[in-house]
């Protein structure tokens, strides 16, 4: 997905929040300082998400955001940028559309990879088959309590990168990166062939630097970005660019 050896800043927003017509602007603002954009497909029951992203989901659905709108947003984005886009979704929208059908449409719209939050490896055979067929990258999550043998399997079925969940909890900004994150990075770096990127609770430039220093190949920042969208709405683009430029500095901790 990204050939360079440099570290990745992955930035997340919920598609359609607060309105589908604004998402493209936000993506173009994020794109300037990001290596990968993670686009959240809004869902009525986002059980792995904390209050910030829950509210974003509610706003996006209230604005009438449909799955097909999310695909067309990515299509439009592709007219301006080649930056990789990863779709973060819950399994139901994928399942209901027909797994293969969903993956095919997603790929055709320009999505490079998928993260399905509530789809553990055990349930993923149909999904893996469809992704293989259509050249879609599959990013699985690992948690602090994922044993080594599971981590190995997760790495095997993942492409692009493995998403390390930093803590026991839902998404959402926290003051500090917990020890569980560093322990997981150390374990994952020994086991995984894929790059490992850390998310959940990462919201500041210092967090980014700490994680990169600890060996992470990339970081995912979500809720802190969604908060900016919540606060500034229509005028969020400049703020997003400013904030991600700051985060980006954390990728080169030796320069800080």
């Amino acid at each position, binding site marked *: 997905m990204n050939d360079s050896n440099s570290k990745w800043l992955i930035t997340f927003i919920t598609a359609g929040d607060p309105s589908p017509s604004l998402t493209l602007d936000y993506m173009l603002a994020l794109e300037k300082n990001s290596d990968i954009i993670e686009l959240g497909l809004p*869902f*009525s*029951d*986002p*059980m*792995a998400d*904390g*209050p910030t992203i*829950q509210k974003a989901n*509610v706003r996006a*659905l209230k604005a009438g955001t*449909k*799955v097909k709108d999310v695909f067309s947003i990515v299509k439009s984005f592709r007219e301006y940028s080649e930056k990789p886009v990863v779709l973060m979704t*819950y*399994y*139901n*929208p*994928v*399942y*209901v*559309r027909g797994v293969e059908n969903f993956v095919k449409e997603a790929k055709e719209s320009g999505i490079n990879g998928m993260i399905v*939050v*509530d*789809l*553990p490896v*055990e*349930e993923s055979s149909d999904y893996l088959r469809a992704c293989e067929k259509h050249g879609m990258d599959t990013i*699985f*999550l*690992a*948690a*602090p*309590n*994922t*044993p080594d043998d*599971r981590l190995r399997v*997760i790495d095997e079925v993942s492409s692009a990168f493995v998403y390390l*969940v930093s*803590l*026991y*909890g*839902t998404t959402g900004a926290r003051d500090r990166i917990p020890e569980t994150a560093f322990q997981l990075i150390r374990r994952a770096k020994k086991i995984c062939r894929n790059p490992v990127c850390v998310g959940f609770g990462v919201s500041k430039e210092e967090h980014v630097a700490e994680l990169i220093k600890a060996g992470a190949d990339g970081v995912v920042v979500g809720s802190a970005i969604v908060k900016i969208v919540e606060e500034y709405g229509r005028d969020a683009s400049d703020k997003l660019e400013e904030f991600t430029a700051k985060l980006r500095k954390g990728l080169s901790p030796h320069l800080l």
Partner: protein
Amino acid sequence: MKFGEFGGQFVPEVLMPPLKELEREYERLKKDEKFLKELDYYLRVYAGRPTPLYFAENLTKYAGGAKIYLKREDLLHSGAHKINNTLGQALLAKHMGKSRLIAETGAGQHGVATAIAGALFGLKTEVYMGSEDVERQKPNVFRMKLLGAKVIPVESGSRTLKDAINEALRDWVASFEYTHYLIGSVVGPHPYPVMVRDFQSVIGRETKKQMLELEGRIPDCIVACVGGGSNAMGIFYPFIKDKSVKLIGVEAAGEGIESGKHSASLCAGKKGVLHGMLSYFLQNEDGQILTTHSVAAGLDYPGVGPEHAWLKEIKRAEYVSVTDEEALKAFSLLSRLEGIIPALESAHAIAYAIKIAKEMSKDEVVVVNLSGRGDKDLEIVMKIEGVI
């Protein structure tokens, strides 16, 4: 372990180890004589098992067909079948060394049953409840508090039962080391649907034994209401292999299926994945889960247990629906004819049992699972009838 294609473990990775631990511990304890004896003791001496199987003679005469028997789960401590499961799971949690219980509740019945078990076994109990439901079900909120539980209003999503489940799962993701999530129905990721069904199967086992004593035979038909489906699964399960027994699950048609205001996931939903399981859900074409309606809060859930989905698929059980209006009629009918005020949930089963008994011959037998008593619903019915 799946029911055909249904069930499974569709959860974030972090919950896989705790689910495996739960599965392992449950498999071990369900064969442990001491655990089973202990559970049996509390079910008998504390909850009031076995519950009677009562021949409803007046109701039978009224319907004018098959004999109607009522399995009196309404007579249990707490007033409903929910306690069969909460005692089982709370005891399991204690054996697993967990110090805290969390639960979701819609109307508050499962929350109350969890609070009771938490008080009994000395486990700290916190119950998630949609803020809409907290407002609508004040007496149960007070009951839970009285029993020492903390009630946490859920402000997210549609602020009802499904959101309370989401919030309980969010809690569990961060607290599984010392917390047991006590799910109240045959829903959720494996092993919950199996475990809750097993704890509720005592209803069906007793029914079989009692029916053999009373009639010298097994029933021709069993009728139970289905929200998530725990009381139905509990009475159906021991009869699944008895092919002559017709199993009928009654869903809530609310204001009518065509109105869109209902909770009939099996009758009107589509296959999907939510709350850790593949089953039937009320959802739109994008897979967004819809809000539901039923006069019976305990049936007001947009999904259904995966084993029911499977029983429907293999045509072992039949699923029908009954409207609010029909259920309310059955509510007052049973009260007047038998002196038993049923829960509005159970009234759905009564309403359908009357219909089907009419079409059956007088030497046939129908059993209705009277899953709960109706005291909790008086305020709702009084409002509908304009008394308050």
